[in-house]
């Protein structure tokens, strides 16, 4: 495309079918303990498939 460049992102709608396993890190168990940030976390299932 000439006017629009799209970054690679995960499609939220598709993740409704495969997501929700709950194996990912709890939000507060990373560094902060005073805010809630989830967008920075990685999906445990996608990480696995990447390492295969």
């Amino acid at each position: 495309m000439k006017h629009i460049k799209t970054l690679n992102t995960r499609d939220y709608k598709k993740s409704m079918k495969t997501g929700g396993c709950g194996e990912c890190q709890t939000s507060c168990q990373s560094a902060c303990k005073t805010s809630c940030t989830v967008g920075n976390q990685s999906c445990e299932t996608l990480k696995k498939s990447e390492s295969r």
Partner: protein
Amino acid sequence: MVHLYKAGGYNIVLDVESGAVHIVDDAAYELIPLMESVVSKTADSPLPLQTALDRLAQIRDEEALKRFCDEELREAVEEICELADAGALYSPDVYEQYVSEFSKHRAMVVKALCLHMAHDCNLSCEYCFAGEGVYKGERALMSYEVGKKALDFLIENSGSRRNLEVDFFGGEPLMNWQVVKDLVQYGRSREKETGKNFRFTLTTNGVLLNDEIIEFANKEMANVVCSIDGRKEIHDKKRPLRGGQGSYDIILPKFKKVATSRGQNNYYVRGTYTHDNTDFSEDVIHLMDEGFEQISVEPVVAGPEESYAIRDEDIPELLKQYDLLAQEIIKRRKKGEFVNFFHFMIDLEQGPCVAKRLSGCGAGSEYLAVTPQGELYPCHQFVGDEEFKMGDVYGGIERQDIKEKFLSCNVYTKEKCRDCFAKFYCSGGCMANAYNFTGDVNGNYETGCILQRKRIECAIMIKAALADQEAEA
């Protein structure tokens, strides 16, 4: 919902409900919001080309479009329609019912505990939400028996979840180090038989760190969080020893050893900034210059009665600081220097599923805090507030009403979150902050929201800049 903003020389468009991120030229930047009024929420093709071209004819004379020629506007419109057809622009919100169902399912399991190993501390940090470690109570250390029972409780209540997280927290957990080690050993001893995998985290102020502890942590802890605020004068003022002397010189060499011995991975140096250092980007840069690659520096959470609390008038400067920090990180990354700032981390390609993104932090349901006496609270920030005591590790959760209240809290129950572009990144924000500032876990801590939105915008801009660099390489 579409969120548009300019940052770092980029025009950035977030298609909030699909997660798509677009970097666009000026023509598309002007057209995208102008087209939104003719987007169909029900048709298969939300923006047919002819509808879009008719709309373009209507708005052609608008001031914002005068500087563009017909051809470039037509091309941009065609690209906009293509993205809308692909579900990457003007996507509808279809998640409310799904997230409600997901939250009900999540009621079944506990997967993370914050163990308060010591309600005691060898520092007396001015801003400590734990009140020098005691959380409004008496000084106390968690016994092995209580800790063991907590791990049993976690295993028994974790359902089919394999990965279980345990944070050794305080006060200062190293004041109870032998019990920490014994609990790690106990947890490991139960992994095989139960099919569970413990991920331990140690959060420490560093005063008691030594080589033996670092070696043990490197073997057993999935993450080590090291508390340091940045520049020596800032750190020492806010994080003195009990006698008033600064702690910076004691902890810095130890934290450097943690960082290097862990190969600069799976740790954070973690600081707090306050009204007294609104130039906090200097503190982050100081930590970078000291050789730390994994850094988190965050705003203090304190009521307006505290002199160090973030005030409304600080916000413009704080937003500027995040911009400065984003540019610094881009500069360093382009030079090949790796540095990760926790609040600018964003995983666009492999980030969480939408269930995780919208259903809140899990406090009070999948995540609980355990006091030295074994009492259960929704999270570490509620500890000491009797109103939120949920039960204990012996009898389990007695206050189902508290659990239900926290479980039902998500971005759709928070009125202000519904129309916020950041909802897929912050999951509705910290419920403790919401409660402390509004008296309701479904409230919004407005200062926190403003800063969170800025951090997300910066994080995505950094992604755009680095993608540009990759394309050039």
